[in-house]
């Protein structure tokens, strides 16, 4: 192979070292130890955004709970858009995965008798959310990461940024990536590739997501010819801190927190979410699903019942009645975050909150084993859409989703790798092209171009206007026009940084290009879905329309780069579409 072009050759390459990616890696190391597995990630694995998850991970374990109830909650939470076979598999395997993590050392919070404790969560009828105080994602990620350290055979390429999937003859053969440390651009080949690149909250201006959540994997897959699914469904979490967008976990409400408008009134009772009770009721009021709570906020704004802050309207989250003891044992991180970033103490003061973009229900279209339609390409975690989340994800379903489908995708990719042939020669030419593209189009240019941050700001503002909590056809169409202009402009972006090592300016430009693709897919799908379902609320089509839209929407990329939306039936097994009822 030509000098320096191919960095390494593996059997399976996992892109992303978050919850899903690391779970996939271990699954392969355990089932197929003779395979050469590698994890490539643009940040050190323990920096992945899974680390920020606070509330918990759902899995049926309590005596009074049942698999069927978790399935039903997830299906109705998804507004019947989730695939029921996938949801069944997910709910069945989630407890085992969480136990596995327990065996790997995750410090789950416990009951006095030594069994793991579970807490309530939004949209769930039973207490089934496992938690490690309110740093669940952090503990899960570090347990996974530290466990992977014991598998010497797993290679890591830390701080490598993947820019392209190498595809030949309908099959994926690896990636091209930038080594941030040295700035070298090289190919890493593999017989199968698993995308575990996480979410894309950064498409929006105000999000709980970390800086790295730019949806790279979705864009990589999309450009390589794999379709994206259900991209119109973006979850707003009802309780983010104004200004920073830092998440205040739903666990605050599960432990008994109240949402109050500026008059101190528990306004959710006005939105068909049940009656206010002093102690939390499951699937009711503050424990309703996230889409409904975020929508209620918008109505409160319209009624003029929200308070003002320098960053727009807010409501209040009231934890004062929970007491310092409970807050310190079950929600210590929330207290820490409020003290640090809002300079208020939730033990004595109200927390200002507002809805904030949080989670991407859509993603790379996969089957129940994480396989995409593109041979050799797999996806899992937030970047994938299996789909179990449908039109609205229930809080605490995403972490176990990373585990269940991370493991499944890992095993499937390993299986594929054992049957796949050698890497074709054509791949090298492709890799060389990509290297040339990056060198010439980006690094080789002078600095007098468009500004990445300006385009990014415009994109984010556009997405918020066009694809916020409530949407309309004309606004979406207008947003699409703007995005197309921005896509033109990003072709002319300038990069002032001439250093190779840690050129974060280059990364920002690449990430922005990815986000523009994703934004376009979101808007195109949103435009086509002329109904309101879950997180997708069209004021011009306020009702759910099962007749026309009880379907997934797949976005394919046309040869000219434009998106094409096709529909795909939802898998319904035992639970026919019904009404979503909360608090009744």
């Amino acid at each position, binding site marked *: 192979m030509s000098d320096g072009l191919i960095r390494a050759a593996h059997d399976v390459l996992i892109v992303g070292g978050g919850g899903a990616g690391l779970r996939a890696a271990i699954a392969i190391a355990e089932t197929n130890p003779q395979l050469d597995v590698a994890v490539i990630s643009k940040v050190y694995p323990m920096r992945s955004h899974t680390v920020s998850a606070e509330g918990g991970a759902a899995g049926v374990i309590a005596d009074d709970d049942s698999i069927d109830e978790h399935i039903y909650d997830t299906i109705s939470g998804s507004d019947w858009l989730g695939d029921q076979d996938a949801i069944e598999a997910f709910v069945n395997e989630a407890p085992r995965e969480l136990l596995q993590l327990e065996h790997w050392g995750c410090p789950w919070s416990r009951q006095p008798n030594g069994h793991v404790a579970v807490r309530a969560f939004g949209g769930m009828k039973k207490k089934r959310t496992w938690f490690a105080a309110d740093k669940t994602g952090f503990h899960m990620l570090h347990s996974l990461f530290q466990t992977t350290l014991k598998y010497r055979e797993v290679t890591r390429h830390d701080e490598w940024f993947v820019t392209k999937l190498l595809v030949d003859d309908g099959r994926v053969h690896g990636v091209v990536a930038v080594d941030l440390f040295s700035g070298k651009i090289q190919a890493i080949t593999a017989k199968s590739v698993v995308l575990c690149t996480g979410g894309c909250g950064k498409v929006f201006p105000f999000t709980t997501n970390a800086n790295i959540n730019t949806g790279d994997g979705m864009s990589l897959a999309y450009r390589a010819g794999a379709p994206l699914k259900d991209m119109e469904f973006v979850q707003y979490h009802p309780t983010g801190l104004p200004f920073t967008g830092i998440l205040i976990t739903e666990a605050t409400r599960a432990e008994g927190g109240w949402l109050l408008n500026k008059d101190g009134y528990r306004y959710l009772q006005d939105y068909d979410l049940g009656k206010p009770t002093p102690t939390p009721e499951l699937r009711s009021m503050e424990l309703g699903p996230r889409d409904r709570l975020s929508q209620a906020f918008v109505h409160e704004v319209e009624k003029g019942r929200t308070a003002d802050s*320098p960053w727009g309207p807010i409501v209040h989250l009231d934890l004062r009645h929970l007491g310092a003891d409970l807050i310190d044992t079950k929600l210590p991180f929330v207290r820490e975050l409020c003290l640090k970033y809002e300079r208020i103490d939730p033990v004595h003061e109200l927390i200002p909150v507002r809805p904030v973009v949080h989670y991407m229900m859509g993603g790379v279209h996969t089957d129940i084993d994480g396989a995409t339609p593109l041979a050799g390409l797999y996806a899992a975690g937030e970047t994938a859409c299996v789909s179990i989340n449908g039109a609205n994800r229930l809080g605490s379903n995403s972490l176990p989703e990373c585990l269940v489908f991370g493991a499944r995708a890992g095993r499937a990719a390993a299986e594929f790798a054992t049957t796949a042939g050698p890497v074709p020669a054509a791949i090298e030419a492709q890799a060389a092209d990509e290297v040339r593209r990056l060198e010439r189009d980006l690094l080789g240019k002078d600095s007098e171009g468009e500004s990445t941050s300006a385009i990014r700001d415009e994109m984010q503002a556009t997405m918020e206007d066009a694809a916020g909590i409530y949407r309309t056809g004309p606004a979406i169409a207008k947003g699409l026009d703007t995005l197309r202009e921005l896509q033109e402009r990003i072709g002319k972006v300038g990069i002032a940084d001439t250093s190779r090592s840690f050129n974060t300016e280059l990364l920002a430009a690449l990430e922005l290009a990815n986000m523009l693709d994703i934004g376009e897919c979101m808007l195109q799908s949103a435009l086509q879905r002329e109904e309101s379902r879950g997180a997708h609320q069209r004021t011009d089509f306020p009702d759910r329309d099962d007749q026309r839209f009880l379907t997934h929407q797949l976005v394919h990329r046309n040869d000219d780069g434009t998106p094409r939306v096709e529909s795909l039936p939802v898998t319904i097994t035992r639970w026919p579409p019904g009404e979503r009822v909360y608090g009744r």
Partner: protein
Amino acid sequence: MPSNPGSNPGSNSGSIRLQVTRYRPESDSEPRFQEYDVPLRKEWTVLDGLNHVKNEVDTTLSFRWSCRMGICGSCGMNVNGDPKLTCAAFLDDYAPGPIRVEPLANFPVVRDLVVDINDFMEKLPRVKPWIIRDDDALLDGDGEIDGEYLQTPEELDAYKQFSMCINCMLCYAACPVYGLDPEFMGPAAIALAERYDLDSRDHGARERLDVLIEHEGVWGCTFVGECTRVCPNHVDPAGAIQRYKVKAAKENVMAFLLPRGAR
């Protein structure tokens, strides 16, 4: 709704000067300082200031960050000489400035504010920071996991503190012994070893002790204690290390009193 921090309103009371380390490996023979004035806003952290520079003033500045909520551990830098998470260090605490922002001390500088932490990444696996069991896992007939290892809240409490490490490397930047002797295993790695030793589910204490009792294990530490003082998560690596010394000493006395075979 408003946009990201850079374009937000908010109380603006003048500006503050950042003195930022710049280093480009291709062209610079050593790091130098560059100054930037950034708006002094009550809710802005040092990281917000750097992002303002990156977005509006000088796009070539490089630094790591991600979660901006003190949990991913990537944004550590030396701020006025103290190792800090820049996403949790507020500008107005340093007013009127200037604020010196340097790459984390004791690590090689790769570029601007980015340091090379590969040394830690190589050390970490050596202390075996994973659950080690004598027995097989709890499995049912089909080889599937069957039930959890019980652990009471008190048993959880015993190691909880040491499980809070975010690998932010502030402790390494604060430890002069690590600065002088990079062979030293260092605070966070040892704290993580202690985390597993104290976990009631783990049986690997002896294996880890074998590693840490080596010369470059715990013995270099002279209990400066700065590691614990700078730790943003109250992990107390200094305590973990001293306890390892006690453990190692006990072991040694035992080995001395009861020669091999007797144990």
